[in-house]
């Protein structure tokens, strides 16, 4: 047996072993975070992020172990789609969670979105009321100009 080849083999085995253990640790981090964090938003951090790294490490380990070049493009595509979709789903859940008040306000040190959402909700309610009474919006209560903000409720 060629000693050179076995040395390379041992190295890839070691690297993929480390990758798999760390990748599994990241999945564990996500699980612990889900259990320990207090509200939906901080749980989203745990549920979506360490797992991206965990998947990357596990896919890399698979690629190293299979030792065929043609799995790499497939693994790369799998990871890229994960990277593209994870922030979108996290954003959608976070956005819905914020609006349905699934968060602990007392744990926020600052909330710069609350004022914008409240203002936009006020405006919408006023518009609805005005429409219901057949009056023009802003006749009864003075609607403040929100500076062209498009945050919707």
């Amino acid at each position, binding site marked *: 047996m060629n000693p050179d080849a076995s040395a390379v083999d041992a190295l890839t085995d070691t690297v993929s072993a480390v990758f798999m253990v760390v990748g599994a*640790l*990241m999945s*564990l*981090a996500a699980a*612990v*975070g889900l259990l*320990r*964090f*207090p509200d939906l*938003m*901080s749980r*989203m*951090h*745990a549920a*979506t*992020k*360490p797992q*991206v*790294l*965990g998947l990357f490490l596990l896919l890399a380990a698979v690629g190293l172990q299979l030792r065929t070049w*043609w*799995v790499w*493009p*497939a693994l*790369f*595509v799998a990871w890229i789609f994960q*990277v*593209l979709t*994870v*922030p979108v789903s*996290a*954003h959608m859940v*976070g*956005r819905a969670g*914020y609006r349905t008040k699934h968060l602990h306000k007392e*744990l*926020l*040190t*600052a*909330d*710069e*979105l*609350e004022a*914008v*959402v409240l203002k936009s909700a006020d405006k919408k309610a006023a518009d609805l009321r005005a429409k219901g009474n057949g009056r023009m919006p802003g006749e009864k209560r003075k609607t403040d100009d929100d*500076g*062209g*903000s*498009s*945050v919707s409720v």
Partner: protein
Amino acid sequence: MSRRRISLRQELPLLVWLVFVWGALWQDFSPGNLLFGALIAVVVARLFYLPPVELGGRFSVLRAVPFAIVFLGKVVAASFQVLYLAVARGPKVTNAVVAVQLRSHSDLMVTATGHVISLIPGSLVVEVDRSTSTLYIHGLNVRNGEDIVNLRKEVRDTEAALIRIMGTKHELAALQQEVGA
């Protein structure tokens, strides 16, 4: 057709990506398979028309490679930070929702910045105000005003790096003026 035509040059990144996915799925990168894939990519791009992504018209590989490495490093560091927070702090962790005004108004830049920021654990985009290109970001473990300033700076720095990679010439000039000032 009333739709704005998009040039082949603008569509090329999409077509190259589609051909790559085709090759990866078949696990076959022979010329014949790629040619057939390219044919299907063109047909798909023509039939299922999507609004064109307005690219900046430039892409700096020299800046993209270090950015990718720094990005991976940040993901690793921040993943361990989330692990530590989950185990050590748990229910007592404090957060904040921070508004960050971006420089660029292009959809591509706002989306790319939001994606990169969301992928680095510890920050999550809750809301996007497209008209003023403001991102509202939920930050994990933000304890005081100093942390808020740091978070805002990190988002702005990420955007600056992305502008250097693929922003328009106009955005790049504005950025350089800002840095120089």
